[in-house]
Structure formats: C-alpha cells, structure tokens
C-alpha cells in the first residue's frame, strides 16, 4: 500500500490538526501538527501496545476499536489496521455542556 493510499482519507477527517501513520519499524507518514513528531509517535505506540494487552473476561480479542487520549483542547485518536497504527489529532469539541 503506498503512503498516499494510507493517508488519503486522513486529511479529510473533520477538524483534524495532524496525523501519524506508524509501523513496527517507525513512522511511515506524518502531517500537520504531528509532522516529524517521533516523540508523540513513540508515546502513542506504547499506549496502544499496552491497551492491546487488556482482555475483557471471556474474550480472546483486543477489547477496543479506537483509543482516544482526551486532553483539554484536543484529542488523539488511534486505531490499528494491517499492522500499522493510525493516529489523528483532532479538535476537542466535546466540551462541558453549558447550562442556559
């Protein structure tokens, strides 16, 4: 799969601020605020690997489809497909509901 095919859909994600595509060997592609950000790539990879080791009782497969790291202003969302980890940094629009 070419890099362009990997990243084609990622920059069309609404309110995305940047993305990373990471494999076992390292970063395959990066853009936006995550361009060349190997540090973030390393941290997210470790978090994803740890999360993959969890198992809900009675289940043999990984217990999640997408991992979200929720910070104040933005969110890192990550998933795994075809031995590659896809990470997108998005604006956090899920703020506290304002009581009118």
């Amino acid at each position: 799969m070419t890099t362009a095919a990997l990243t084609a859909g990622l920059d069309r994600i609404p309110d995305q601020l940047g993305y990373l595509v990471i494999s076992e060997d390292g970063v395959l592609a990066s853009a936006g605020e995550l361009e060349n950000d190997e540090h973030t790539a390393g941290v997210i990879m470790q978090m994803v690997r740890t999360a993959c080791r969890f198992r809900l009782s009675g289940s043999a497969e990984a217990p999640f489809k997408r991992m979200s790291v929720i910070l104040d202003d933005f969110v890192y969302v990550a998933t795994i497909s075809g031995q590659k980890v896809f990470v997108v940094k998005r604006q956090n629009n899920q703020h506290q509901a304002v009581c009118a």
Partner: protein
Amino acid sequence: MGCCYSGEDNNSGEKSSETDPLIPPPNPTSKPPNGTDWITTNVPSARTDEQALLNSIITKTAQNIIDVSAADSVVMEQHEYMDKARQYSTKLAVLSTNLHQKKALTLPSLTSQPHQVLASDLVPYSDVQQVSKIAAYACSAISQIKVDAKEELVVQFAIP
C-alpha cells in the same frame, strides 16, 4: 561384607535396576574411554574374583563418565567442523526468527476501515465525566485498604 559390591551377584535380577546406566551407552564395547589406561579386556579375568570386580567397577564408571578435559577428545577434520558450525547457526537463525515473528504479530488488527473509525464522533463529554468519576472512586477505595490487626503476630509459648 562391608565394602562396595560385596553382596553383588551378577546373576541377581533385583540389583540390575540400580546398576544399569540411566542413558544406555550407544556402543558399550566401542573405543576405550579417554584418559584411562585400558589394558584389560571386558572379559573378567579368571585369576581372582576381586580383579574381575575391580574391572567391572572401572567399566561401569568409565561408561558413565564423560571426560571433557581429556586431550584429543575431539578429532574432527576442518570441513566437518565447519559443517557443524553452519548447522548450528542455521538452527539458531530459524529459532530466533520464529521468536521475532511472534513478537511482531502481537499488534492485532482492530479494524479494516481506519479512516472511518478515526473520523467518527468523539467520545461524549458525559461518558468521559462518568468514567473519570468511577476511576476516582476506585482510586479512593484502593487508598483506604488497610490491615485490620486483630491479634498479636508474635506470641510467647507458655512453658511451665
């Protein structure tokens, strides 16, 4: 009486399990063991029973001992040595790639539509709040775990 093998009778069956070697030697009548003087043959001498017994002790010990310090214990030609070295390194390579493969495959595939999954709605704030609250309760509960000492750990035995 009072010394090794004094009660041994070669014809008795019950002692054979104690004296049989654990790993049967490949060829018991093969070349002489390294490092020992091998003068007598396997056939016990008719001269004295004592001589025969001593010889049998030597035979059994020699069969059970591998002398790694003996000189010229390995007489291998250069090509044999190279062949063996190549064999071992191939085997090692196979084993190490198997191990490495296992490690690389531990990234499970979570989805076949990564773009779709990453583009879908973010986790609602109410869900995040609820999970944070539950985690805070759990943290507080764990911090309150303590030992409830009911009795003394160390007691004196009452010795009248």
